């Protein structure tokens, strides 16, 4: 799975790359508009992370280049502009998703995962994890063939864990994923614990192994 990280801030690009590489993605980088253009014209990627403010040009033009070429690369805009208009503009220009900086790396990984899932049609609509299966189109979860009924948030959480397999996720990243924009208004993210506990309980009851670990009561890890 190849990912292109178009980001002019080398530190951030390196961090994103480090996290994604550990997730078995192959990362390439572009730090300027010219580099970005060259890469998208020459190579194909499963997913492109696109910063809009680039030295040498506007990131939105990269989307136009992709459109002109009729390419099917998934694009996630990662921008410091966190406003409604920029979001709408970006999605209109053909981006699949829009993530405002500063974001958590697990959140980015989850978004990439879902963009790639949505873009690849061939039998990719099922997520398999050991004895667990998630059918993404019908949103049904089965363990050893038996249906486990999860709430929307629990399913959301499950996919979040799966897309960040073997990584430690902090409470604040989970809270941000579950309650979006209002997450950073609170210092207390204890509500996350209740959701994780319920999910764990349901999966264990259905006979799923202990793959979801709690680490020192502050972080979580899905081992797969």
């Amino acid at each position: 799975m190849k990912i292109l990280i178009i980001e002019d801030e080398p530190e951030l690009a390196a961090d994103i790359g480090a996290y994604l590489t550990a997730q078995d993605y192959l990362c390439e980088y572009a730090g300027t508009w010219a580099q970005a253009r060259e890469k998208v014209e020459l190579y194909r990627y499963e997913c492109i992370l696109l910063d809009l403010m680039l030295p040498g040009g506007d990131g939105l033009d990269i989307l136009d280049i992709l459109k002109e070429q009729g390419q099917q690369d998934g694009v996630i805009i990662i921008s410091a502009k966190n406003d409604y208009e920029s979001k709408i503009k970006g999605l209109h220009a053909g981006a699949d998703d829009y993530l405002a900086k500063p974001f958590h790396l697990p959140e980015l990984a989850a978004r990439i995962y879902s963009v790639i899932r949505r873009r690849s049609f061939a039998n990719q609509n099922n997520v398999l994890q050991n004895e667990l299966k998630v059918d993404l189109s019908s949103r049904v979860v089965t363990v050893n063939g038996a249906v486990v009924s999860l709430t929307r948030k629990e399913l959301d959480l499950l996919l979040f864990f799966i897309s960040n397999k073997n990584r430690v996720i902090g409470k604040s990243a989970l809270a941000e994923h579950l309650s979006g924009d209002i997450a950073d208004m609170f210092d207390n993210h204890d509500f996350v614990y209740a959701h994780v506990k319920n999910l764990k309980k349901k999966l264990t009851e259905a006979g799923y192994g202990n793959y979801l670990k709690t680490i020192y009561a502050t972080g979580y890890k899905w081992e797969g």
Partner: protein
Amino acid sequence: MKKLLDQSLRPLVMYAMVVLIVSIPVYFLTINWIWENELDKHHYAIREKLEKRLTSLDLPDSSVSDMISVLDKVQPGFSFTQATAPSPDSSYTLIRFDTFMNDREQFRCLMTDIRVNGTLLRVLIETNMEEIDETILAIAAVTIFFFILLLAGFVYLNRKTSLRLWRPFYDTLASLQSFRLEGGKPAALPVSQVTEFTDLNQSLDRLMDASLASYKQQKEFTENASHELQTPLAIVKSKLDLLLQSRSLDQPQMQILEDAYQAINRVTRINKNLLLLAKIEHAQFDQQQNISVAELFHALDAHFLDRFESSRIHYAQQVSEMTLKANPMLLEILLTNLLVNALRYTPAGGSVSVRADQSKLLFANTGISPLDEHSLFRRFAQASHEHAGSGLGLAIAREICERYNWQIKYDFDCGHHHFTVIF
């Protein structure tokens, strides 16, 4: 508030009024003096004629007294009496009821002596004249009539000339009223041939250009500062996420990381809110539509419910049909901030309620003591130090309310904080 054109009229009208009011007694005194003077002259002439004619008749004394008594009875305005000793003449005015005219009448009188054949006669000559009060009334009426005429003329002429004179001023004013800093363009001021107006317009142009420049600078500064901060914040956040992956972390280190996350989240929140405040002030978000408040709450509750649950707070939301015309983003931010505020300051086991009442939204939550109302809606005014909000949530709420001319109020009673938004 007074209008400019009326201002220039006012002293004129006042002056005219004073002059005319003063003129009433002056007119009256003058007319009265002329009247009396003329009548007195006339009375003396009569007296002279009477004395001359009576003397020239050369009648015997007896006939004279007969004639006098006849005259006394027949001639109106005369009365004759025998006088014993001469007395000085007197002219005077009196008002009495006249039997002949059957009305109250005013007379000018002359009491004088005439001598006929050595007999001294006291003669009273009276002439009916206009009553003093009626004279005053007539003069006043005429004066007031002319005053009104003057006033109407003043107003009309003043309107005409002043309007022409001040036209450039009013044009400038109209252009200025349509001037908005957010528009980013100075108002086009009319060209005038008058030096003062040209100077005024030039000064205003300079002022507008300066304001626009500093406004633009401030706007850019806030946005740039905020944007510049986003990147280092993003880096810190990603570094923490990476650090969390290291296998050698023990519990105290995990706790340190957790604390660092909290701090970075708070900085992120403050930065986001500062940017938002700048945007609201710069009158972005101008797109408006009708929004169902109940539906909006329904969407918000999905995010809030689990937080209320985990803090063991009872949450009751009773907002039925209510529609508002506003920017959806702003309305959502307003309601979110008020909910977050209630949730943040409610002790575990307390309650939060939202209800709609005609054109009001009432947020109530359990509290211990009243908050300081004055600093509550100010930026970075922490109403309570036990909690760490961004200190901007309520400032943003107020800013949004001001934008739509809504009112936001706080009060405390029966152990509850109440925040009310009046639409």
